[in-house]
């Protein structure tokens, strides 16, 4: 029995259902909305020299820093931002210049910890449980195909769907962003690798990359984060056998992941939670990590462990459990 036809089946079932079209619609609508909002903001701002604006911003942030009223977490961010803007000023690069490619690049950061995981959950949470809900699992598992192979075909289809979604997200962001801000600029230099060494800014790690390379890396990390969430949602789908329950569980986890680092930044062990590691394209580009000490390789390692463990448990449960639905 060849494997490809099984994957073909699973992809067909994913694409034929409404949820895939809904996911595409969400990507289009969201990107459209953001671009529209940004053009509105841009239009209202009087045309001014970006240098003056950036200098004013640095001065404003330095005032905050000196006021001593900022909590520790915000102070870190403010110091970082001052350093980043100042660095751009020193090299005569507009830190806020926007273009279609830049907009697409920003989409990777903005979507990696909520939107893309959400869409991954949308597919993964129902890929196994829907077969139970429809009763089709009884047909699926009474073919001359072992259960592990059936599950593998579903996992492969999920991987394809997530990859497709991340890629489409990038393309849609580029198309919309380009419409508003111009399609050129993939070769523009990007300064990346900003880092705080303790309390001070460490310029040693700053590198200049062409934008397309930087964007590819950022999307790669966002894709990896989405795959990990997909694997964990896949496990909940296998174990809970109910799409609603699986979705609810995963959404709760995502929400916890966005709240926890804000309300309890000193709880260091949360760096081992998968949700804390999802914004990794963000701190790849230089934003401070949610918990001090988290690095991109660290996050990739944590996510890999989570994904592998979830997949292993999903197989163990699916292959052994009686089907009584």
């Amino acid at each position: 029995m060849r494997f490809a036809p099984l994957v073909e089946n699973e992809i067909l079932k994913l694409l034929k259902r409404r949820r895939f079209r809904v996911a595409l619609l969400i990507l289009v609508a969201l990107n459209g909305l953001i671009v529209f909002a940004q053009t509105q903001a841009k239009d209202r701002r009087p045309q001014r020299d970006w240098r003056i604006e950036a200098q004013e911003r640095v001065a404003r942030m330095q005032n905050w820093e000196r006021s001593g009223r900022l909590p520790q977490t915000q102070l870190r961010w403010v110091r970082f931002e001052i350093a980043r803007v100042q660095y751009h000023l020193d090299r005569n690069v507009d830190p806020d210049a926007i273009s279609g490619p830049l907009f697409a690049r920003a989409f990777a950061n903005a979507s990696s910890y909520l939107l893309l995981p959400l869409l991954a959950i949308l597919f993964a949470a129902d890929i196994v449980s829907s077969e139970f809900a429809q009763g089709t699992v009884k047909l699926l598992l009474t073919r001359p195909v072992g259960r592990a192979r059936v599950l593998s075909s579903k996992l492969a289809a999920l991987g394809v769907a997530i990859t497709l979604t991340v890629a489409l997200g990038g393309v849609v962001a580029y198309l919309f962003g380009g419409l508003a801000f111009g399609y050129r600029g993939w070769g523009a230099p990007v300064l990346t690798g900003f880092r705080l060494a303790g309390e001070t800014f460490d310029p040693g790690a700053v590198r200049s990359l062409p934008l397309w390379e930087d964007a590819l890396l950022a999307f790669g990390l966002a894709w990896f984060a989405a795959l990990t969430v997909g694997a964990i949602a896949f496990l909940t789908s296998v174990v809970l056998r109910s799409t609603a329950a699986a979705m609810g569980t995963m959404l709760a986890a995502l929400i916890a992941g966005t709240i926890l680092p804000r309300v309890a930044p000193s709880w260091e062990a949360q760096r081992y939670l998968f949700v804390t590691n999802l914004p990794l394209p963000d701190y790849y580009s230089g934003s401070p990590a949610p918990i001090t000490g988290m690095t991109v390789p660290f996050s990739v390692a944590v996510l890999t462990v989570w994904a592998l463990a979830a997949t292993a448990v999903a197989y163990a449960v699916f292959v052994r459990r009686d089907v009584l639905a």
Partner: protein
Amino acid sequence: MESPVVLSAENLTKRFGKREVVSDVSFDLVAGEVFGFLGPNGAGKTTTIRMLVGLARPDRGRVRIAGFDLARDFAKAMSHVGCIVESTDLYPYLTGRENLLHFARMLPDGAQARIPELARLVALQSRLDDRVATYSLGMRQRLGLAQALLGAPDLLILDEPANGLDPAGIREVRQLIRHLAEDRGIAIFVSSHLLAEVEQMCDRVAIIHRGRTLAMGPVRELLAKRGAERLVFRARPAARAAEILGAFSRDGAARADDEETVSSEVPRESVPDALAALAAAGVRVFGVERQSSTLEELFLEVTGGETV
């Protein structure tokens, strides 16, 4: 002439927690026979079927299909099986053809080529490209049957195939099952909770109750155990009719149930004489019917009075 054994269940036992839902169920099916698995709802029929097709693991016992041990050689064993478990659930958002293609892709090459022929067999050609969500229950049932036949199976396992069908649909399914067994030599396992259904299409039957096989054998033999058949006469005046029929009855008794209904155990060969006697006595007979005995009555006979 010995037909080969296609399905063999040995001492199948399944527990849910402490409760044993199937206990020591054993049977063999040979090619070309229709085997009825009869029992009331909740008797353990579906659990047994789940063990036959590998959806549930037996706590004890073994299933062999076409000589392959199901637990050890799942894929090889299942390549000989087509089945419908419980209800015919297919993908509602796919068309009939897409559903068949989907399941054909899970079978060895050649299954796709059978789709047109099977669509004709279950009379679905004209609706094959409509989404299953728009199908009636009967059509879904027939599509399910086509799906079960895709792999040209040697063994067909059908769980309550007549459920939800109208009388015409039931007759069609019955004819199809007989045709598949007699003309194609497929062994067919049919579960049912309806005695009449099993009576009309099965060669052999096992009666299962509370997870145990109470009796097994050719349908006629089992039905013979049911004892004398009861006839119900619609006749006026009922009291006079009961007097006359008592003489023809096996046990010498006839009971007037109301002013127009008399029930009595008149043997088949005595019915013409009984009718003549009724006519001669001036009793007006409006009809005679055989009282269909219920599954419960059969259980009473088989178990010798143990309550169901």
